[in-house]
């Protein structure tokens, strides 16, 4: 059965996010005052799995082994049919 995993990778709380600071600064230049801005990466991955539980396990494995670096990132996984 084919599942779609939505995998979101973000920096752990307290980690410096230099890209976010630069983007926030640029938004300020355009007149958009912001209180906070964080960057995240979203991966949409379609793959075969026996059931939702296996799909979630596979998606977590992708994060642990490649998509995220555990030193600085946390990840969230959602799987859909």
């Amino acid at each position, binding site marked *: 059965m084919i599942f779609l995993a939505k995998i979101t990778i973000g920096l752990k709380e307290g980690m410096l996010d230099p*890209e976010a600071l630069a983007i926030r600064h640029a938004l300020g230049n355009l007149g958009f005052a912001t209180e906070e801005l964080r960057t995240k990466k979203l991966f949409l991955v379609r793959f075969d799995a026996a059931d939702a539980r296996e799909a979630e396990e596979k998606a977590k494995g992708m994060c642990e082994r490649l998509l995220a*670096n555990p*030193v600085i990132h946390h990840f969230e996984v959602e799987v859909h049919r």
Partner: protein
Amino acid sequence: MRFAVIQFGGSNCDRDAHYVLSDICGVDCDLVWYKDRLSRPYDAVILPGGFSYGDYLRAGAIAARTPVMKEVTAHAEKGGLVLGICNGAQILAESGLVPGVFTINAYPKFICRKVHLRVETTDSPFTSRYKSGDVLQIPIAHKEGRYVIPEDQLSELNERGQIAFRFCDESGNLTPESNPNGALEHITGVLNKNRNVLAMMPHPERASEEILSSDDGKKIFLSMISHIEHAKGVTC
């Protein structure tokens, strides 16, 4: 004695490292395409600088998962020397061969300039020819070189003397201005626990001849060569 310089798609300092080892230091050195793997025994493996896989995902992340890196890991586990320079350092951190991570600079731009480093330990196969506290002038060229490691692992690094180099000013002081990428505690060279793997962001192969204004990096390669000669002498 034989060195290998591994070339990934996007490596661009591979020939410089090969030139310094073969022409300046006078040792046998192979350029090894990563798909060809380590087909013969090597005393030392160099992972050169560049932009393997276009720095996609994170610098070094994809190269770290290539089959040749399993062989590099096995080489390191047997006590073989591994030196990762710039992108090579990022690959070593992504492989888990050294602790921590080299991530995007505090001010997120590419920095290419000469900097100063302080030698923090001479107790390694890479730094034995220096004196502790020596200040070296070696260039950096990176956008993802800010060293980060969790607090508990940082104290372990300090206690074990696994920090090889820190950014400093020309007198060896750790001032905020002398830390070009915002690295944690100015760290820019890290050893593994067994001290046979070194990951460093600065480029010693670009500072190995006086004609290039500094040969301060050459002793890293000479230290490795001395270490290998000594090890061979002992085992013969």
